[in-house]
């Protein structure tokens, strides 16, 4: 017997959470783009999507984040630090890869200097992961040692029932236990079996990849030029990545007032590293692609003991030139040694 959340209780569940002061965010299909957004009822949710096109990163590290509001006069400046709204949120129906992405980024935003913006949003959020029932050809979680039913980054774990009538439900953190307490009357004990976890084929050998990347002799390999030849440097892969965290800080406004913002930036862009002098340490697309791969599978591992990839496959799925990380890592796996 396990606890289950029946599908027909989901509306009551949402209502109970809203009553407890939470906003509920879930996958939604609006216009041409699927993403996480606030929902009012179960029918607003697009839970059958394999994966939303946009990641939940948008709600923790938004595309643009106001940092400081300022007003300028000749000898004085009036500035006010802005803070993210302190609103309790539940992310319902997060895929394991996206939930892992948050856990992967925590140490980066926390080393030495704590990024208050990230952690404020992290601390007011509860992640309800739903294990995958389906995978597509781009999914690659198993290649990065995760799985379609990984609980990494989750507070509550849901596993779809084979019957399709609901989910097995289990708290996997203290925050998750507290959340389930708010809806315990809606949960039932059942012997319904969970649906089988989909098979996600391993697309590359991450150990082999890491070993090749760690060899300094390969840093200037011709491989980087060949593999990145068709990259147009659009940055889509970085913006749609659940772990990419690079940003810019820009002032927007007129002469007398405005807002300093933290905006998404991308290692794919030439301006990202360009010095004022004109010198650019990463002056070719191949060097920028190398930075992206090295950062994810070598530098990040060295600093935080984890690769900065959760295997969602969006970089490949949504690449306008059909490139992506998978192809590069497959190629590295297959390089003659």
């Amino acid at each position, binding site marked *: 017997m396990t606890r289950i959340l029946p599908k027909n209780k989901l509306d009551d569940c949402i209502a109970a959470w809203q009553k407890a002061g939470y906003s509920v965010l879930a996958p939604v299909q609006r216009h041409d783009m699927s993403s996480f957004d606030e929902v009012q009822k179960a029918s607003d949710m697009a839970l059958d999507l394999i994966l939303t096109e946009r990641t939940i990163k948008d709600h923790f590290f938004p595309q643009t984040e106001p940092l400081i509001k*300022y007003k300028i006069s000749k000898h004085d400046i009036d500035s006010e630090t802005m*803070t993210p709204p302190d609103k309790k949120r539940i992310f319902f129906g997060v895929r394991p890869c996206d939930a892992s992405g948050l856990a992967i980024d925590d140490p*980066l935003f926390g080393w030495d*200097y704590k990024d208050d913006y990230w952690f404020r949003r992290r601390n007011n959020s509860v992640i309800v992961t739903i294990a995958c029932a389906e995978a597509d050809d781009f999914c690659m979680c198993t290649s990065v040692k995760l799985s379609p039913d990984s609980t990494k980054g989750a507070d509550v774990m849901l596993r779809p029932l084979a019957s399709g009538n609901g989910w097995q439900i289990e708290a996997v953190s203290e925050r998750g236990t507290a959340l389930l307490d708010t809806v315990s009357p809606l949960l039932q004990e059942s012997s319904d079996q969970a649906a089988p976890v989909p098979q996600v084929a391993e697309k590359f050998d991450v150990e082999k990849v890491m070993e090749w990347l760690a060899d300094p002799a390969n840093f*200037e390999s011709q491989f980087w030029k060949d593999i990145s030849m068709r990259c147009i440097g659009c940055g889509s892969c970085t913006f749609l990545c659940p772990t990419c965290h690079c940003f810019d800080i820009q002032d927007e406004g007129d002469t007398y007032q405005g807002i300093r913002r933290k905006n998404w*930036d991308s290692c794919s862009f030439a301006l990202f590293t360009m010095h004022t002098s004109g*010198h650019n340490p*990463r002056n070719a697309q191949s060097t920028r692609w190398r930075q992206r791969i090295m950062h994810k599978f070598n530098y990040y591992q060295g600093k935080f003991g984890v690769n900065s990839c959760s295997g969602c496959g969006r970089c490949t799925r949504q690449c306008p030139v059909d490139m992506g990380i998978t192809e590069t890592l497959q190629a590295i796996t297959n390089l003659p040694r």
Partner: protein
Amino acid sequence: MIYTPFPMRVVSKRAEAPGVNTLKLEFVRQEDHEFFKANYQTGMFGLYGIYGEGESTFCVASPETRKDYIECTFRQSGRVTSTLANADAGDIVTFRGPYGNRFPIEQFEGKNLLFIAGGIALPPTRSVIWSCLDQREKYKDVTIVYGARTVADLVYKHELEEWKQRDDVNLVLTVDPGGETPDWTDHVGFVPTVLEQAAPSPENTIAVLCGPPIMIKFTLIALEKLGFTAENVYTTLENRMKCGVGKCGRCNVGSVYICKEGPVFTAAEVQAMPQADL
């Protein structure tokens, strides 16, 4: 909050060279000053800004022995630096920092010091120079080799004069061939060449080297010829930065974040980095 800077009042501005200015800044708020005094050590950097334009990264050019103010020296080249260059006494600008690591000057005690700087790289070197000269008794011989393209491009001219007058500092000044004026009496030649001629002894000596990449490259060769080991040569690197605290993802050379693990490195550490990423 993490990205909120300190307001700073401009005390004075000094023109150093064509397009190069030094701003002397004082703290507006007592608590910011206390924070700076408790944390600043020579070699660290900050992000200097003006609301409406943004922030730029440069070193703190004033020494850790003088923490009542911050001096920064910069070349006017982009939006932020152009606006900063137009600041007047009394204006409010911003400072975020101090960030990064430092020159371990307590490890330099009892040793000879050789400072080598090129062009606008004197400011970071100058912070270490004064940090040591202000406690002169702790160090042995002090040699400063400084060069610029032309006589006009030498920065801190009044301090160069002061160092020249001191008998406990050996100042070697040079300008690139063609950069001299008719009344120039110091050296003419590139820094690495002049350094080799001056031939400071590597014995019990720490070298602090700052300059444009091409100068660093050839000066390191000269230092090696003179017998310096890469572990005894310190330098400071710079890269484009936005956050200054290891998050925005752009200043790394290989796996090394200049903003957090640097900006101060030994030549041995720099040589271990992937050179193609510098």
